[in-house]
């Protein structure tokens, strides 16, 4: 088991109070597991991803623990986290197009980044070249400025750069949403290849696009309003979801699992509750067709069958 998150709570400080964007998810990620993370916009996917690597200025750690390969990850301590960043936990940002300093040649920027992390650039140079070629680029991209590369090329360079130190955990937030369909597939396949070659041990792939993630993920986790709704092997989520929200999500997809289905997570009536002062009990209650009295109590996230976790009173 490489990653273990227990009851992690991270809120956004605002003047009207705390936004409970991440309210106690608990899950594990096995070695070699690629987990897709899905959910409506605003459900807290990015917040979860950011919490595992770097809290931004407005985020506040409230409670919970994270464990990576048996070591405690001090997500609340910005300085101590530096030991984990890049070397053990890394990310491919959503904005990979503009993730590189526009006024530095890519190779030079990479060298400066590596040296600043105490890694000798010369020692990883060969591996870097190999991986650049592996993703289908020419080594001389290192002598270019980011502006000289196309969007897809930049995306691939960032993927190589982010995983160069073989982290245990890679967080990829919406890495495909800015790309065209064929590039999306290439990027997704590269992620799998990186896992297969053990460049990264396990991955969290945040996405809106369930049908895309379904093709590469081992498991899929669905979030709703800052909490976990369901986590199960990818096939199970698609074919036998248990949580009412997941069911609605899946049925909103035209033909699930079909290759180029592009339908986004929309079309469910109603909207999620505000996270400033969320209602007690199950957060899906207001939109749930099955809601009943017992749902005024928050349902626990329990394993209903092997590797299949659901937070719903009616999930049996």
């Amino acid at each position, binding site marked *: 088991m490489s990653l273990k998150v227990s009851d992690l709570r991270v809120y956004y400080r605002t003047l009207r109070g705390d936004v409970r964007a991440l309210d106690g998810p608990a899950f594990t990620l096995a070695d070699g597991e690629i987990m897709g993370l899905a959910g409506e916009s605003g459900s807290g996917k990015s917040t979860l991803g950011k919490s595992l690597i770097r809290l931004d200025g407005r985020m506040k750690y409230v409670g919970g623990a994270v464990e990576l390969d048996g070591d405690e990850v001090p997500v609340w301590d910005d300085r101590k986290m*530096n030991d984990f960043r*890049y070397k053990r936990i890394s990310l491919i940002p959503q904005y990979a197009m503009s993730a590189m*300093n526009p006024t530095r040649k890519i190779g030079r920027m990479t060298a400066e980044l590596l040296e600043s992390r105490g890694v000798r650039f010369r020692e990883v140079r060969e591996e870097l070249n190999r991986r650049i070629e592996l993703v289908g680029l020419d080594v001389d991209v290192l002598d270019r400025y980011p*502006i000289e590369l196309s969007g897809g*090329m930049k995306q691939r360079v960032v993927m190589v750069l982010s995983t160069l130190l073989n982290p245990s955990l890679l967080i990829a937030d919406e890495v495909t949403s800015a790309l065209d369909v064929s590039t999306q597939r290439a990027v997704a396949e590269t992620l799998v290849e990186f896992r297969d070659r053990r460049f990264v041990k396990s991955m969290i792939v945040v996405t809106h696009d369930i049908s895309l993630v379904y093709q590469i993920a081992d498991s899929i986790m669905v979030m709703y309003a800052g909490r976990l709704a369901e986590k199960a092997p990818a096939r199970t989520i698609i074919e036998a979801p248990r949580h009412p929200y997941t069911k609605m999500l899946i049925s909103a997809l035209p033909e699930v699992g079909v290759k180029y289905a592009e339908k986004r997570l929309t079309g469910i009536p109603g909207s999620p509750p505000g996270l400033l002062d969320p209602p007690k009990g199950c957060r899906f209650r207001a939109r749930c067709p099955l809601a009943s009295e017992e749902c005024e109590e928050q349902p626990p996230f329990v394993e209903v069958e092997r590797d299949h976790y659901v937070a719903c009173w009616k999930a049996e």
Partner: protein
Amino acid sequence: MRKYFGRKIFVYALTFFAAVTINWMIPRFMPGDPVQSRLARASLSNPEASQAMRDYYNSVFGLDMPVWQQYLNFWGSLFKGDLGVSIWLFPTPVTEVIMDAVPYSLGLLLPAILLSWVIGNKFGAYAARSKWLDNTVLPVGYVLTATPYMWLALLLAWSLGIVGGFFPSSGAYSFALRPEFSWVFVSSLLEHWFLPFLSLFLVSLGGWAIGMRNMIIYELESEYANYLQALGAPRRLIRRYAFRNAMLPQLTGLAVQLGTVVAGALLTEIVFSYPGLGFLILQAIQNQDFFLLQGVFLFIVAGVLIANFIIDIVYVLVDPRTRIQMQGGAK
């Protein structure tokens, strides 16, 4: 490359054209026939000059010619470097009067602009580091940019010059000296140069510090900064990148601000009776010497345009993005 500079040069040429046209039009189309009234006044103070002036006016203005021909003639004499004859220093040609003054103005402007830009940027970048610094640099910067150039000049001339007696507060060198290349003369030159330089430098400093601070904060929130932070890069590296990238818009800012600093230098020179272009302007206005005023104006415009062009070139040299786009290498 050619397209970029071609465009720039076109704008500058157009600007120069507009400036010359303004220069030509104003004395001719101002209501109340200003030329005649100026001449009338000049003839009272200096009859000999006034006769020459009258001849000169008749030849350049060629008032019996059609307007378009007058305009062409104006350009013609301009190309010959002929800006007329100064009334104030009759019969010295305006070009000569200006040429004597230009070194003084440049001697003030160049160091003041360059140093204030470099140091202001450093201050600004520094301010973005901590709240405490920010809270001191920012207000000081705003007060400095809000200070009229001549007022700071007056304060410095009075406090460090007249009261303190540390520096002379008038002229470019001691009255007792003649220009020559000697230690005494050069040190006198420097002493006289210092206060006007300082006041010009200080006022400009504030704007750069503020500009840099804002740009750096903006850069530090950019996505590459975020990415580097997530990968645990030290603040030092990120700041270095941010500073460099923030310098580029500051360079453009330099071009935009040139006119302001030049004007500041003019006003500063007046306070210190420093014999540069600003001092000439004052003399021209007080002596109703409009040839001189117009000549100085054209000179300033030309100078600013040239400086702009130099900045354009520097910009291309330091910003890889522009360079690459110009070579057509961008994807």
